């Protein structure tokens, strides 16, 4: 078994589904989960033993024990309580009871609480395991995608989630840009491409210039509160109103009923993309049955206002790019919600052309992340010359006198990008200066997102206005802000204390990692060991059968001696904890019994020729004993 520790995977951490992919040869492929599915539902639940369950198996908990499960956690990443009032009204998020003001949100699952990055980390860890199972080797590095319109706090939260899951996040890539990489890998042509990405919870539009392998984002825009979830919520509201009107009871606070209805309306939504109508037929908890037919026409009328909200961002992106719709060479559709015919019609009208629908809207982002992972690991023939030049979606500013935002890095600036500002003191001997960093397009500081407050400390005593502190703001290739400061007159480094407005501190993340990371390492080691011991059992059983077969007699005494020696060696190491030693011994025995297996095969064939079937030939499991090339299986 080869261990390639440098294998970097690409992860799409989605609102509804998450995927992990990697570059196999010259094309990216999605790694399926144990159930064979490429999509891992982004649902997390706690089972009765308080063990986290992720994905399809957690889905059942949504209906059975809704108070112990959570979905669409991405909507809460990097947000404060005041940002999520809309979410709280529409989603069954249960906030922790003891939440303090200014603290990072915590969600209640059963009697435990988790921050959104921790929940996301559970999803990431499942993807990591799926990849490890697939490779038969540990995976520790990843590229993770985020909505292009994610702000600094949301990006930071995603990075934290990666760290908690035991993944080194080498790069955060914007989802529409990732999609363009997957698109461009095949197409290899120059031109202007618009990516329209309407997912489960977020909407992004990006306009890119493709030029000889360079993917240069010219403008991006979006809405991190807009997606398929909103359409589900519209349908649910109708059903809930109907039930209240017709049957006279309000199910809004019955979590089980709400989830049952949610499941049904999602089915309806999907069906209505291809069918003229859909009959909702829901068995409500406690007996009553709700039925209603929804026509495509009704559905389209209902969702029109929601999908119309994508128009503004598209127009703004075009304006920022300085382009007219007819200058766009191709529009690429990404995200499950772009399957809705009405969405496609809207895109067609906006960009005045038929959108490109050749990509799998659910998988293309993950595939693009895998392409980026490949570029970061040094590239291959397929990604040679490919380079992504992305932009920051939102302007970066500083609060100045009068509560006004002074923008220092404008939106759609290619990243990495930097800006330098100089500050001084207002009174004699002032040692500290407080700086408030903002992100957003609004004029007033209070309307922008507060990213952080920096305290510049240790300014040497000087008369007011004399110190000259240079503060450097640097947005890195992940779209995350880094700050450094220096007092120029004295040459001393002013110390910076970062207080992320909505994020976890380094120490908090560290604490969360240690728990899960240690466990993950241990889990992985144990799985390796269990798996190796399983193989030992198989190969020894096969050998026993081989010894009883006619073929055994054809071996030389020396060969038999050698096999006995290797068998003994394997039995010895198998009792110990070192899986690598066990593997080595298995490989050795596998190799040493090659001739035995061949002889058994020959015997089987000649017996078969005599009219007996293979079973009767007592072929045993010899030839099917695990070969060194066999794919490893865990769990």
């Amino acid at each position, binding site marked *: 078994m080869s261990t390639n520790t440098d294998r970097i995977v690409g992860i799409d951490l989605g609102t509804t589904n998450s995927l992990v992919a990697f570059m196999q040869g010259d094309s990216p492929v999605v790694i399926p989960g144990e159930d064979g599915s490429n999509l891992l539902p982004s649902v997390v639940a706690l089972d009765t033993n308080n063990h986290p369950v992720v994905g399809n198996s957690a889905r059942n908990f949504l209906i059975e024990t809704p108070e112990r499960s959570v979905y669409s956690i991405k909507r809460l990443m990097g947000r404060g309580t005041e940002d999520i009032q809309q979410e709280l009204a529409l989603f069954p998020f249960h906030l922790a009871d003891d939440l303090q003001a200014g603290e990072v949100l915590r969600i209640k699952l059963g009697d435990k609480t988790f921050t959104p990055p921790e929940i996301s980390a559970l999803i990431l860890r499942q993807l990591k395991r799926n990849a490890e199972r697939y490779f038969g080797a540990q995976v520790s590095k990843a590229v993770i995608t985020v909505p292009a319109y994610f702000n600094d706090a949301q990006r930071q939260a995603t990075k934290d989630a990666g760290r908690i899951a035991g993944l080194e996040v080498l790069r955060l890539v914007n989802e529409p840009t990732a999609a363009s990489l997957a698109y461009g890998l095949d197409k290899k042509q120059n031109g202007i491409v618009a990516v329209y990405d309407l997912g489960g919870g977020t909407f992004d539009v990006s306009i890119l210039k493709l030029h000889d392998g360079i993917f240069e984002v010219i403008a991006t825009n979006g809405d991190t509160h807009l997606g398929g979830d909103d359409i589900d919520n519209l349908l649910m509201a109708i059903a809930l109103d109907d039930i209240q009107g017709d049957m006279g009871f309000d199910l809004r606070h019955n979590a089980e009923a709400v989830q049952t209805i949610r499941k049904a309306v999602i089915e309806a939504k999907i069906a209505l993309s291809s069918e003229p109508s859909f009959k909702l037929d829901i068995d409500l908890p406690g007996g009553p049955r709700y039925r209603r037919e929804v026509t495509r026409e009704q559905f389209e009328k209902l969702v029109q206002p929601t999908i119309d909200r994508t128009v503004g961002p598209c127009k703004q992106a075009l304006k920022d790019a300085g382009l007219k719709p007819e200058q766009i060479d191709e529009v690429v559709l990404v995200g499950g919600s772009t399957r809705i015919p009405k969405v496609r019609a809207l895109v067609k009208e906006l960009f005045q052309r038929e959108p490109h629908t050749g990509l799998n809207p659910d998988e293309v982002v993950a595939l693009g992340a895998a392409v980026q992972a490949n570029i970061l690991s040094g590239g291959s023939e397929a990604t040679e010359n490919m380079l992504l030049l992305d932009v920051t979606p939102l302007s970066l500013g500083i609060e*100045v006198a009068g509560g006004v935002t002074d923008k220092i890095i404008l939106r759609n600036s290619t990243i990495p990008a930097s800006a330098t500002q100089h500050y001084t003191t207002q009174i004699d001997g002032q040692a500290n200066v407080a700086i408030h960093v903002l992100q957003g397009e609004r004029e007033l500081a209070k309307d922008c997102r507060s990213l952080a407050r920096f305290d510049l400390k240790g300014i040497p005593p000087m008369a007011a206005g004399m110190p000259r502190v240079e503060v450097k703001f640097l947005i890195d*290739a992940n779209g995350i802000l880094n700050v450094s400061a220096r007092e120029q007159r004295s040459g001393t480094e002013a110390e910076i204390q970062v207080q992320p407005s909505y994020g976890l501190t380094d120490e908090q993340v560290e604490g969360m990692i240690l728990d899960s990371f240690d466990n993950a390492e241990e889990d992985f080691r144990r799985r390796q060991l269990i798996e190796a011991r399983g193989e030992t059992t198989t190969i020894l059983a096969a050998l026993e059968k081989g010894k009883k077969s006619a073929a055994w007699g054809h071996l030389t005494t020396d060969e038999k001696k050698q096999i006995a020696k290797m068998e003994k060696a394997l039995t010895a190491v198998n009792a110990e904890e070192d899986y690598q030693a066990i593997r080595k011994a298995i490989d050795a025995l596998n190799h040493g019994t090659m001739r035995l297996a061949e002889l058994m095969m020959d015997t089987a064939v000649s017996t078969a020729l005599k009219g007996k079937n293979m079973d009767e030939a007592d072929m045993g499991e010899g030839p099917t004993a695990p070969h060194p090339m066999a794919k490893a299986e865990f769990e």
Partner: protein
Amino acid sequence: MFFAVCKISVNDMTNPANTTIPLENADGVSASCWSCGEMRAAHFCTACGKVQPPAPVDYFTFFELPRKLDLNVIALEKEFYILSRKLHPDLNARSDSQEQAWSLEQSSLLNDAYRTLKDPIRRTQYLLQLEGVELEEQSKSATEQARATGDVKKQIVPPDLLEEVFELNMQLEELRMQKKMGEDDPALLEEIGKQKLELETKNEALLDELKSIWTSWDAIIEAEATGQSASADRKQVRDQMVDVLNRRNYIRNLVRDVNAAMEVGN
């Protein structure tokens, strides 16, 4: 307890990034690649390809360009792509952490430089800054000076616009009042729209005017490079550019006001 931010809004010239330091060190000190010892290129070593520690240079020097304003944007883009392929963090992701840090800094400097130089207005503003001109300050002092000497006419409100601006502001006020009352006067809207269009046309013309001053500026730089004496006065050309930029700025703000007034309530 900290005190409010006090941003220094003086000239940015003391920013080391704006100070020109020749890349080819005359003494030959640290002009070689840290990794292979070959003569270093500006940002990466031409011999071994390693990213070099960033040198504090201005944006023109970064692209190895003279401080001329009429630059070839297509060629600039090409150079930007070439340098991106060397400096971008994605392509240096496997280097050691020091090199990665340099790559991040070099790449942000590259992006900042390209963003500034590709745009005609930002490029001119940046050059004036390098020349030690603080745009607003300069315009104010220039205005004072012009008034005192009666020499060149420079005003914060461009004099050729004074009357129009007065008229337009009255109309905008009327429009705001009407919107407040929920009334609608298509004739007024049409009139304002027409004026807005005129302003935009004027702005276009100002860009052309600016470009013609570039020619004089570039001639000065050219003459300096060849050791000849320039025909035009450096300061005078600079002031002309400041004047155009100020007028342009003024009109742009006006157009923004018009847009804001027209959008309210729509």
